[in-house]
């Protein structure tokens, strides 16, 4: 079994079988990460370029480490120090990097669709590291891996995603993946950030935290994006956390074994209380470890797709 596309642009384009293949392969890579020598020669001699047009420490370092563990040569391009500042176009940037011999390009961009545009013009493998408010496929894959590892399955589970869904590419990718696998997805948050139109994605919408969390098996908390404060989405962060902050009291509404997830970075005390984030049900740090294994799996499998 192999992946059908040379790129990983989104969860939307992946079949259930392809996602399962990625998650199964990630298990094997998780073993590698436990060894003393955490490196395998699988992609030795190939080159990966991390093209991050938006700031990111977490995703970028995760990809960088995953690439190094596969023995790839790694180049990190940060937009502020690149020719993009001189006005070079996106496609030209990508073509120039390919001309240097890049086999993989991991792209994060503030415009939705940027990686898709680039993939049409280059032969190298394009991996979407987050595009605008569209998708963040590797995040959803690592979230799915974490859920499967902790709970054993995705089908039939009730999973709540809490927060600024409207602007969240993490939420979108997760919604596509979890619904593909037959989970009941509940979106919880203020009506301004969780509009009714999202029901079209096959999810249930709640504006009341307590009823939304009833009996759920996993709670995914999203970061309150401070940069959107002051645009009228909610009166104040205090008001937000009073109504939708995940406290241990609210968590008790969920299933007794429910896990707490967060893509990071978190605003401690705001969208999630400290004792919950550090509590026994939190899998936030495991998500980070799993992210490494999942990204290794993605790159390993994409290397096997030849046109």
């Amino acid at each position: 079994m192999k992946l059908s596309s040379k790129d990983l642009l989104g969860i939307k384009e992946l079949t259930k079988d392809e996602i399962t293949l990625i998650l199964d392969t990630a298990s094997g890579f998780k073993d590698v990460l436990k060894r003393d020598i955490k490196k395998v020669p699988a992609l030795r001699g190939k080159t990966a370029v991390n093209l991050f047009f938006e700031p990111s420490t977490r995703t970028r370092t995760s990809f960088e480490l995953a690439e190094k563990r596969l023995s790839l040569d790694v180049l990190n391009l940060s937009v502020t120090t690149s020719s993009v500042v001189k006005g070079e176009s996106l496609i030209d940037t990508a073509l120039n990097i390919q001309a240097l011999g890049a086999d993989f390009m991991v792209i994060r961009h503030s415009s939705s669709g940027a990686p898709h545009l680039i993939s049409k013009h280059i032969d190298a493998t394009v991996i979407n590291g987050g595009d605008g408010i569209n998708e963040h496929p590797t995040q959803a894959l690592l979230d799915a891996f974490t859920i499967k590892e902790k709970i054993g399955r995705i089908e039939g589970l009730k999973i709540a995603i809490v927060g600024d869904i409207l602007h969240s590419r993490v939420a979108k990718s997760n919604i596509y993946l979890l619904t593909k696998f037959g989970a009941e997805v509940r979106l919880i948050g203020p009506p301004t950030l969780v509009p009714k139109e999202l029901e079209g994605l096959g999810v249930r919408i709640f504006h009341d935290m307590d009823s939304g969390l009833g009996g759920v098996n996993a709670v995914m908390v999203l970061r309150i994006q401070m940069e959107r404060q002051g645009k009228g989405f909610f009166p104040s962060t205090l008001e937000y956390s009073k109504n939708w902050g995940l406290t241990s009291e609210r968590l008790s509404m969920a299933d007794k074994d429910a896990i707490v997830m967060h893509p990071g970075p978190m605003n401690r005390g705001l969208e999630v209380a400290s004792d919950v984030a550090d509590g026994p049900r939190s899998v936030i740090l495991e998500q980070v470890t799993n992210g490494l294994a999942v990204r290794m799996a993605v790159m390993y499998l994409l290397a096997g797709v030849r046109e």
Partner: protein
Amino acid sequence: MLKELLDKKDMDRILARMAHEILEKNKGTKELCLVGIQSGGVHLAKRLAGKIKEIEGREIPVGSLDIAFYRDDLNIRKEQPQVRKTDVPCEITDMKVVLVDDVLFTGRSIRAALDALMDMGRPSCIQLAVLIDRGHRELPIKADFAGKNIPTATDENVEVSLEEDGLEDKVTIE
């Protein structure tokens, strides 16, 4: 045309003899461990460990090794090899490791297994036990313990099927 080379009884006798040979060469079970190469060698390694226990009365560690990441043909295959579990339950540094595989052919899988083992530690020595040696080595690799030597043509296919996989115990050539 499918031809059966070994049946269940043949295989059992061969494994018993190999277990004795392993014990003879290593003068017992001290610092000995078996590592089966995924996926053909894993069940065979467990069977050999079982026979060693019957003879010597001692249990030795048995592991499984996936060599997918160490293969030398990742660039030319049509699809990536499936990634399986690697579970070596003991520290292999200073141990005598006996690699176990079902069929020894070109020797490239063994080369990959050697690289994988070296990344995991520094064994005091590595020996190779295979059920079938079918010749046509492409690398300077030899088996220390071979169940049966079978001359084959390169286009022939030797299959070892095992009860643990839900099939009959037998070795066939086609």
